[in-house]
């Protein structure tokens, strides 16, 4: 292990010692400003309370401005998507030598071949499964990381780990960290939007977009094409005229109050927040209104699929995601898959994986592929980093007496594309059966570090002091995965 606390943590400490010893405050101020130039100080006071989402500069020039995460809740199997294992086909039906007799849910059965055929795609000839033909057709644009590991084999904690860097409850989510660091390019919209799946919320629910111990202003705002932001509009019983009159009266009272309490930035910030809210009341319905999308776009995403309602709704979520990115929203997290329901509504295929993935695959594949393609054709991929991921992988064996795979935190795949990402690479590998990551192994923290890096943020310097720890998204870990950088 490298070291346990960031350089920045040490310098902060030194700064405190210095402040304590300094006879005049001048030296301290000089040092503080020096530190400010070197790194983003983990100090909420630097954030203008009236404009918490104002765009802020990163540590160093960034490759990416926005992030789009497509999160497949329930643990989408690497073996049925991107991690081609010809040896597994050969060993179908045999026991895994020296394999674990018991895994998360119970006794292990025998090895089971990938449940879909694989075929080569694009110039790179990347082997991808028949479950994801639309996404696979863009394989030349993607960077695959096949050797990720998780800290937990349980959905909730593992989703926590992917989204917050910690398996425990209560830590800030990726999107919160990033909007805390960088603000947003569009102050009329939430800086961080979480788009839950039409079938329901994911296993770790709000943890995936929570603020943890960061100010609440940096939490993700959840809404999707079916469920608007709560309380976005006043109750129907209040007319537009009355609503405006109320705003005017409130402004008058608050201005009077501010006059009696001059110079209080917090009061000014609250007044400003009503103005931002008013703008949001206009901008959010506008961005959620997909009726302005042309027919061919709806068709490209599958949003007009009348035979598959869930797919159509998920496709609408994908269109919403594109519109948000287009408008400069910093962090958009799209969820595919809901809460654990024995794999019925998410990727948790314990018992009848093929049967369930036959349902989930078409819902995810075309709309997600269309989203990435649409971003590309609009030139948005130049500034947008796209990450497709899931909370962990699945076992190469079937569970005993079942036709599905158990949880496997030992090796799984994520897909990157867009700003700053090298196209057409496959990095890292699991063993020949896809059981464990063995080559260029990367705890998911490395992906966090890479994400921040592309945004111009040094993951070791993006910290907040909480209960005695300089907390970061990468805990005390994380190495940028250089091999996937353009």
């Amino acid at each position, binding site marked *: 292990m490298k070291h346990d606390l960031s350089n920045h943590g040490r310098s902060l400490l030194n700064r405190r010692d210095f402040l304590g010893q300094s006879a005049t405050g001048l030296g301290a101020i000089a040092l503080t400003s020096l530190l400010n130039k070197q790194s983003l100080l983990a100090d909420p006071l630097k954030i203008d309370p009236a404009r*918490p989402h104002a765009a802020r500069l990163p540590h160093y020039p960034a490759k990416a401005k926005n992030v789009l995460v497509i999160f497949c809740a329930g643990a989408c199997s690497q073996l049925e998507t991107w991690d081609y294992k010809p040896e597994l086909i050969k060993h179908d039906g045999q026991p895994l030598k020296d394999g674990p007799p018991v895994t998360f849910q119970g006794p292990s059965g025998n090895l089971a071949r990938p449940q879909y055929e694989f075929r080569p795609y694009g110039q790179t000839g990347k082997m991808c499964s028949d479950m994801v033909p639309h996404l696979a057709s863009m394989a030349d644009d993607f960077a695959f990381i096949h050797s990720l590991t998780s800290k937990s084999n349980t959905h909730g904690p593992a989703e926590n780990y992917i989204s917050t860097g910690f398996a425990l409850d209560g830590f800030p989510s990726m999107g919160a960290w990033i909007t805390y660091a960088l603000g947003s390019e569009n102050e009329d919209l939430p800086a961080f939007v979480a788009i839950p799946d039409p079938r329901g919320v994911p296993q770790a629910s709000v*943890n995936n977009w929570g603020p943890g111990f960061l100010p*609440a202003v*940096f939490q993700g705002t959840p809404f999707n094409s079916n469920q608007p932001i709560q309380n976005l509009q006043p109750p129907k019983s209040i007319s537009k005229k009355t609503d405006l009159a109320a705003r005017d009266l409130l402004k008058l009272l608050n201005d009077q109050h501010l006059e009696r309490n001059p110079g209080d930035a917090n009061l000014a910030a609250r*007044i400003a927040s009503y103005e931002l809210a008013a703008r*949001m009341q206009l901008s959010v319905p506008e961005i959620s209104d997909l009726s302005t999308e042309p027919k061919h776009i709806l068709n490209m995403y599958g949003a007009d699929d009348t035979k598959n309602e869930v797919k159509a709704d998920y496709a609408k979520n994908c269109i919403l995601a594109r519109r948000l990115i287009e408008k400069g929203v910093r962090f958009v997290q799209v969820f595919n898959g809901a*809460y654990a329901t024995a794999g019925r509504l998410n990727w948790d295929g314990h018992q009848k994986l093929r049967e369930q993935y036959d349902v989930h695959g078409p819902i995810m594949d075309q709309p997600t592929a269309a989203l990435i393609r649409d971003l590309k054709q609009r030139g948005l991929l130049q500034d947008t980093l796209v990450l497709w991921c899931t909370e962990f992988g699945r076992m190469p064996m079937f569970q005993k007496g079942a036709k599905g795979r158990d949880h496997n935190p030992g090796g799984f795949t994520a897909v990157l594309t867009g700003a700053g990402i090298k196209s057409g690479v496959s990095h890292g590998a699991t063993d020949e059966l896809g059981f464990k990551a063995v080559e260029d192994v990367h705890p998911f923290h490395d992906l966090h570090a890479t994400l921040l890096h592309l945004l111009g943020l040094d993951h070791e310097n993006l910290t907040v002091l909480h209960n005695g720890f300089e907390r970061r998204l990468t805990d005390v870990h994380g190495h940028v995965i250089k091999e996937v950088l353009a």
Partner: protein
Amino acid sequence: MQRLGASLIFFIFAATLPAATTHWSLKPIKRVEVPKDANAIDFFIGNKLQNKSLKFSAEADRATLLRRVTLDLTGLPPTPQSVAAFVRDSRNTNVVFAEAVNALLASPRYGERWAQHWLDVVRYADTHGFEVNTPRANAWPYRDYVIRAFNEDKPFNIFAFEQIAGDSVGEQAGTGFLVAAAVLLPGQIGKDEASKRAARQDALDEIIVGTCDTFLGLTVGCARCHDHKFDPITQKDYYAMQAFFAGVTYGERQIETEETKKNQATTKLLAERIQKLDLQLRAFGPDVFSGRTIVIDDEDTRFTTHLKDKQGHGTNPDGTKRGYLKDPGDDKRLPNLSRGRYTWWKHTPGEDIFTYNPAATGRFRIWLSWGVHGSGVHTRDARYVLDRDGNLKTTNDQQEIAKIDQYHLFGISKGETEKKPLWSGIYDAGTHELTQKSRIILRGGKTGTGVTADVIILQESSDTTAKLDPPYLRRAPDTILNIEKFLPVKAKFVRMTFHETMDNFRHEPCIDELEVFSALTNSVNLALTRYGTKATSSGAWNNSQHKLNHINDGQYGNEHSFISSWKTNGWVQLEFTQAQLINRIEWARDRNLRHRDRLAIRYTIQTGLTTNDWQTVATEKDRLPFGTPTASTRFAHRLLSKENVAKVNKLEAERKRLTAERDHLAKPRRVYSGQFIDAGPTYVLRRGNAEQRMDRINARVPAVLGKLGLKLGENEQNRRVALAKWIASPENPLTARVMVNRIWQFHFGTGLVSTSSDFGRNGTKPSHPKLLDWLASEFIRSGWSIKHMHKLIMLSDTYRQSNRMNGEGRKVDADTRLLWRFPSRRLEAEAIRDSILFVSGNLNLEAGGPGFSFFKTRGGLSGFPPVTDFTKKEFRRMIYQHKIRMEPVPVFGAFDAPDAGQAMPRRKQSTTAIQTLNLFNSPFVNNQAAAFANRIVKETGDDIGKQVARAFQLTFGRQPTPIEAKAAIASAKTHGLATLCRVLFNSNEFLFLP
């Protein structure tokens, strides 16, 4: 009052602390005395201000002061009356203000506010957290305990002790602290052993980290994997701390307190009163049925014949729904008489299956019952045929008396039936003439492939039965009391014969007292020996508890009872000195309710003038069969005369009330406060990995802090007691410092040490170290009184300053750390919500107990949709919510309310557009605005000027300025008063601590 005096805890304090260490917070507390007459707080704060050429601001005006102190201590704004009285009071402000602070500290609202601060630190929630986030149903007693502790000003050293070892002093709820964190439940942990060990290690880590953060301000979490880089905490120290808690597991314990003991006593008294009522109620039971009653179960081989082999039985499912095993019936419907199951056969149409053989001559009314199942095979037209001569070969004497749909319950003829074997209820097949030989044939119907049989009832035709449906049946015999009432009869002898006891004749019958009452206005029990009555029997036990003459000794209970020496057909007989007119006999197994065995379930009671002319006055035959569920007393009372209905209703209402009270008190009180086990030795783990054990380690505190001298293998509770004593010791330099700093922080927004759970080298240094030490020593000197510290702080000039900015202060100390003004700040989520309800007049002050929910449903796919139709219970103070870990509370969660994932020693203060949308647009706030408007109209009438003035008084504690009044009146005129109220709830003046 406190069970554990401070002196008692600490005189055996064995730890020693190192005399000097380099870090400030580990050095002993040093009290610097301040000049006489000086207020210590103002002295230290003033000195520092002077050093920076700053001055205190002027004192805030009285109305502001009262608003500040009321919100600060209770989380609610002052009422207009209290503001007016406070402002008008002509006495010195010091005096008036001190009185106000005292009054607020004495209010129960104080504990409800300040307990929340503590709950933030311990990350309290009513759910387990993580993905499943299931309810932690009995967490709330800890929350109530904390509220009570603040309200009672429980000395903090005792409070701290109880957090870690409350079980050792009978304060079970206290250790809720140890297990307040989120935890993975067994089903969420992998089935493999490594996963289980890792999860256990995480759960223990929460306890160690929680204890060290909360009381010591020491961050030890990183030492789980390696020696602390900044503080003198080694990895060994971490696992030595773990050894204190190795036996603490996440779970519930029963609470044993003075209160629960009192409850137990009350429960007993209530049970006795309920018993008395029961006995009173039974006196209203009906007379013995004068004719014959015959109940034939399908499995009673004495009165049935199988004509073909049965296929099997259908067993009624357990439960109280109609047709289920414990279906108690109601005032119109009989309880389940099936004895738990029916018999079924495969059938072909017209096939004779089974017969009931009543073996009785006379006119009888017949009720049928059958087995129901929604499987679809049951016949829809089973035939019941009366065969008068009992010879099945002759058919000209046969008469079809019923055609029964066995797919449905009685009285239902359409729709689906549950796919479960149910009892049908009874069908009246009319009155028929029977002979000794007559039989009732069950014959296969034209439909279905299965036919069933269950109990039937025959009752001799009379005026009574002609009017009755269902049949005249008294309650089943039971062990508590059986009353037999009949028309007056003259008797010198009474004999009771016991044919059968419960459990298939296993035991001899027992009667604690056989009472025979005279048919006179002043009825007496003639059986008593005092009237010269003599008892004889066919044979009786003879020992100290059970003997023959206990049958009429006037004493109840097993200790004074009669047991026959015969298992069947034994008898006991009473002989009066002369023939008496009698009309009631009462008997029981054990009127004292302790014994429920040896009950006679078939019996005959006879009377005679001699022993040759026996006349039967009562049997069990007109009773419901033994074992019939009779939870409902209503059926038993359906035969009441009108004048008795009222009496019975009254008694039953009283019984219901007492039973509810008893059930409530008798419920075992449990609290989620850990279970303590012997977990075996603790090992240092390499890099925190539960799979890599290194050396075994003993429980001890971090070496740099001292020694407890516990022996290896000390028992579980002793280990925690030793740690708790050490933490709660006045010698411990951290405990008092950390707590006074927290108190300071909640008053001023920032602590003297701004990192209030980190007093290590990574935390900040105190802004006023001497003041911190002075406060800590004063805290200990006062007997660890938190209320004493409130008074000290709030009565200081420092606290009473105006909050106005000034140029000088802002230039030198923009963050107001030096306190040249009172640092104003936005109120927390709870204070905002509760204040809105308080002002609207809807706040429900019901305190304690299980929390109310902010959500319609919990978890799963739909997440947590907010409650939108509010009732009174949702208007309780927010601390009484059922706190869902991680899930933001609707509307107010956006105001930086902690999620109880990680400890939140100091809340954030963010300002967001989402807050604004929630507060401005939510149905909750707008409903309260409407309620507030109604309240104002009720209080002031129609004058709009008065209405506006009242609105300002209630929200801000002041009159509107002319500009405000003008705008507000104009707005209220055009857009209604509720619009003004909505605006006031959203105004900065309402939302900020002034």
